[in-house]
């Protein structure tokens, strides 16, 4: 019987804001039957030290994801557009590619 199994039935991803100024960061997952139980489990598991500011739980199967190694079209273009990066351009302290440094 599935209910008698430990950790059934649902998995929840846990996100924690450890300090002010930081985004919520994924820290792991918990198993719990419902959202309140998931939040309580996440609190007991992931906040035993420090004084985190906030906690999110999201059902794992509710996350729709894409990741770089799937050879899908999601990320293929990102690396090949150098003009998106500041390094593509001359620093503001220079006149141009062949300019001289200001002293």
């Amino acid at each position, binding site marked *: 019987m599935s209910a008698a199994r*430990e*950790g059934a039935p649902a998995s929840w991803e846990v996100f924690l804001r450890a300090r002010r100024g930081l985004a919520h960061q994924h820290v792991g997952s*918990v*198993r*719990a*039957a419902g959202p*309140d*139980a998931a939040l*309580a*489990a996440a*609190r*007991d*598991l992931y906040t*035993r030290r420090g004084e985190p500011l906030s906690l999110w739980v999201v059902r794992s199967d509710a996350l729709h994801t894409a990741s770089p190694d799937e050879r899908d079209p999601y990320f293929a273009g990102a690396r090949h557009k150098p003009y998106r990066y500041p390094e593509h351009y001359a620093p503001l302290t220079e006149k141009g590619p062949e300019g001289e440094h200001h002293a």
Partner: protein
Amino acid sequence: MSTTRDVTAVPPGSPPGGPPSAADPDLARHLTCLGDDALVLAQRLCQWITRAPTIDEDLALSNIALDLIGHARTLLSRAGRLDGTGRSEDDLAYTRSEREFTNTLLTELPNGDFAVTVARQLAYTHYAVLHYQTLAHSADPELAAFGVRAAKEVAFHRLHADRWTVTLGRGTPESTRRMQRALERVWPYTGELFEEDDVARRLAASGTVPSPAALHDTWLARVTEVVTEAGLAVPAPTWSATGGRSGLHTEEFGPLIAELQSVRRQFPGGTW
């Protein structure tokens, strides 16, 4: 050092009020009652660890027990400073005989199944929230600061108890039956939390500690709300247990205290 004291017959003592810097046996005795409640309940919760329904619950119950031990330490060490004996928290926890402990019988009840533990947590945590929220306004600054901290901690314990009461009450037919039976088992022992003697009344009148009796009606309203949400009935017990506050305990209490103190008693003069 430990002779059995008759805790019901403390002579009318020091005038209450103000932060007591010197000996205050009345306040010491009152804080010992509260500290013993926390210590004994923590000891019962410790018995769950590695035996809980899930590993997550091992974690949850140990978190609660850890907070309760913290409360016991604060309360007992303060009591030791106030009672004129200079006893430490450990002296009080480990060298008193079972007749000298003044916890309520509720806290020492054997764990039973998980539902009984949840029912006891429900009764105790709702009481503790009210108690510490009031203590946070104590005229004694040290107790007030402790009340602020403890109120936050027991508020989380209360959420835990509420959640399980409702979950078990509205879970399966078996869990509903067990939860109702657990409430019936525990309820006769809840009245003792609200008992007060002359000393408690005097201390409460001076604004040092909450009046236990005054918390009862709000407590009942709040637990009734949770029990009702759980689809269960608030028991109407025909009897009410008493005796813990005067050191008259259940037979199960002796082994609990013997276990608590066994290592320390085995090594007289030891350092830990």
